[in-house]
């Protein structure tokens, strides 16, 4: 009485009904409301599909000739082996694990289930497309392979790249380039050797590639579990008065850290300390100056260079403001500073000043802790 298609849709509708009831009863608030609405939508859509399917009797079997679904040549063969059920099982397992642990697993499970469902549906359809097994195989691979190949390739490549990155992050910073330089050379030589011997067996190449991949993936797994090497952090004391007036403190000094910023090619001005003297160089203005005009409200980039013999830091003294809005006047003297810069090093600082010089009781200045007689002025119109 029930055709194959309507059984599928009927099952899906029943599942949607159960899901709607369970979800609706267990979830409150806006998410519960939204989720329930969505599930009701799915339920209605599936019910409509069931009805259509039922009414048209799958669109291919005359209603009176039900036996044909079992006796026809196309239905004569037993189903072939398929990975889809295993894949679906993995998906369900992931769903269960994800529901208890990390949402990422749950999302992965949904994805795997979708893939399994697509695979399953197409192979099942393909097996009964005709009575001719060869034709059936061809037609289902023509449907599936355009999706299978890229997917499997992406997953495989992803695994290889991930393993690779774990290995690189485990090896120490100076060793990694050497090891991978050698590895790259090996790949090149191997490729050359294989190319120069066209008669090598395919199975041998496959074997070598499989062993290499296996090695890489297992090494990656081991190193991922062991954890990556410690990567140093370089904190920047942005506006801590305790640090900005200090000429020696700073645990870490990374001379090259800001050197990688591309915008370093266009600073508003370059501030230099050399032999205990401070100077600022602005584009277009010849020679060293003791003042620099900073555009109010704009993003300004200053490059600070230490050409002295000892480590130095630059401190920006950003005026003096009195706030009397709370009754008792509170005087603030905001500061900002660079890290301690090694001799020969440069540090880049990006900042924005919203108050003009006229609003401050004292001028904006740049100083270097430890050099008391040198002051640069920042003029903010």
């Amino acid at each position, binding site marked *: 009485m029930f055709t194959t298609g309507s059984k599928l849709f009927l099952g899906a509708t029943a599942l949607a009904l159960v899901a709607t009831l369970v979800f609706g009863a267990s979830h409150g608030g806006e998410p519960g409301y939204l989720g329930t609405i969505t599930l009701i939508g799915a339920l209605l859509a599936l019910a409509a599909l069931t009805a259509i399917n039922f009414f048209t009797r799958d669109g291919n079997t005359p209603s009176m000739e039900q036996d044909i679904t079992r006796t026809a040549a196309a239905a004569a063969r037993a189903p072939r082996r398929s990975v889809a059920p295993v894949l679906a099982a993995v998906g369900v397992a992931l769903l269960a694990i994800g529901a208890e642990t990390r949402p990422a697993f749950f999302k992965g499970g949904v994805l795997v289930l979708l893939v399994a469902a697509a695979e399953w549906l197409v192979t099942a359809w393909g097996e009964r497309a005709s009575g001719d097994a060869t034709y059936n195989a061809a037609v289902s691979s023509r449907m599936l392979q355009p999706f299978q190949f890229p997917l499997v390739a992406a997953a495989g490549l992803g695994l290889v790249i991930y393993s690779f990155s774990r290995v690189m992050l485990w090896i120490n910073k100076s060793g990694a380039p050497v090891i991978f330089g050698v590895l790259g050379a090996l790949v090149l030589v191997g490729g050359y050797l294989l190319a120069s011997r066209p008669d090598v067996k395919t199975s041998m190449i496959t074997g070598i590639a499989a062993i290499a991949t296996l090695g890489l993936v297992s090494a990656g797994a081991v190193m991922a579990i062991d954890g990556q090497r410690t990567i140093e952090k370089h904190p920047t004391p942005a506006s801590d008065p305790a640090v900005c007036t200090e000429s020696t403190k700073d645990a870490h000094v990374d001379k090259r850290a800001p050197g990688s910023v591309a*915008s370093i090619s*266009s*600073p*508003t001005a370059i501030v230099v300390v050399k032999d205990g003297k401070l100077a600022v160089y*602005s*584009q*277009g*203005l*010849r020679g060293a100056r003791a*003042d*620099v*005009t900073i*555009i*109010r*409200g*704009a*993003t300004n*980039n200053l490059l600070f260079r230490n050409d002295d013999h000892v480590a130095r830091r630059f401190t920006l003294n950003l005026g003096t403001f009195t706030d009397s809005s709370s009754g008792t006047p509170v005087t603030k003297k905001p500061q900002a500073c660079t890290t301690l810069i090694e001799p020969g090093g440069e540090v880049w600082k*990006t900042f*924005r000043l*919203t*108050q*003009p010089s*006229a*609003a401050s009781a004292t001028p904006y200045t740049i100083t270097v802790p430890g050099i008391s007689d040198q002051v640069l002025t920042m*003029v903010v*119109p």
Partner: protein
Amino acid sequence: MTRNIPSPEVAPVHDSPRRVTRRRVGLAATATGLLVALAGCARNAPQDTFQPAGENARSIDNLQRPVFYIAGVIGILVFAAVGYIVWRFKDRGQELPIQGHGKPILEIGPIVLSAALLLGIGVPTVATVFKLAKTSDTQCVVIVTGQQWWWEYTYPVQPGCAAGGIKQPIVTSGQLVVPAKTHVLAEIQSNDVIHSYWIPKLNGKRDAVPGRTHTLRLEADQPGIYSGQCTEFCGLSHARMRMQVAALDQAHFDTWVTNQTAPYQKPTDPAAITGEATFQANCSRCHQVDGMADSAGKPIISQPELYVVSGSAPNLSHLMSRNTFAGAVWDLLTPACRDKVWHAKPEEFSELYLQGVSRECLNEKDLRDWIRDAPAKKPMYSSDAQIASNNGLSRGMPNLKLKDDQISQIIDYLVTRK
């Protein structure tokens, strides 16, 4: 049923429909060609790249003209050759000619010729690029900041530009005032999105990119007005983001600097005094007027960063020293007064420009409309709803819903800001 197609016997022999269409197409093509050609001959074209008015634009012109002419001649030759070959060898059922197997001279010849041509274009191009990038001969620096939808100019403290240098920074907008015959270096920045600064008669374009400083050389041979417009699409009112360079002779430029750095002049006229208070109450939160102080003598500092996305609004200290406003789109001068200044001879221009805007010459209509409802004049994404959806920040100046008498007071005050 078939359609009624006029048979050859019925149609007039001397004017077949085919010939009529062909003639029409020919006519249309000729007309289009003429129009395109004529468009290049506009006489009043203030933004014509083919009329350089300074050293930098001239270097570009000197480079592009020969290339344009040579490429033009080659273009005509190629099209003529293609046309000839199409006509000469069209399929009339003739026999195929013998198929040869390449002619080295015909293959190598054009390659060598093209390489030589490219080299001939490339070498001067690279030389010009370097020439236009030079900053070491700068005599005057101006920081040019783009924001939606106007340009701000800041003259940093420096020994150059004016006779005694610039001792105190100057901030202005819309019109960039420079000394003529001087190597001016514009340091171009942006406060919000990418804009592009272009004064066709003075130099090529330069993008204003947030977080970067790009330099552009500007030099005008003679005093006068040079127009331009933002050439990088920057949002709603991109088309209403213009600018002018006003080049003055050195003596008058020095006077301009003195005027711009003069201490604040309190208004004396009673109407203007009322206007100052109205301005403080409604405009000072965005617009800075340097030196203006409250009744306690405390300087009034604008806070555009609290109200505008770009964090800036034009400095109005000397509004009436400029000729245009709001992205240099509207005139502050009446048409008659404006023509007198803008079309003056180079020797007379500087003097006339420095006169600024007087009450008689003020184009009050546009200024009034602007203060009454700025977004109606220039779409600016600054309606109440848009500001609310944007953390209270507007792009451009919002409608302040002032009454007519308040606007009159403010204008009475602004007229005194020379």
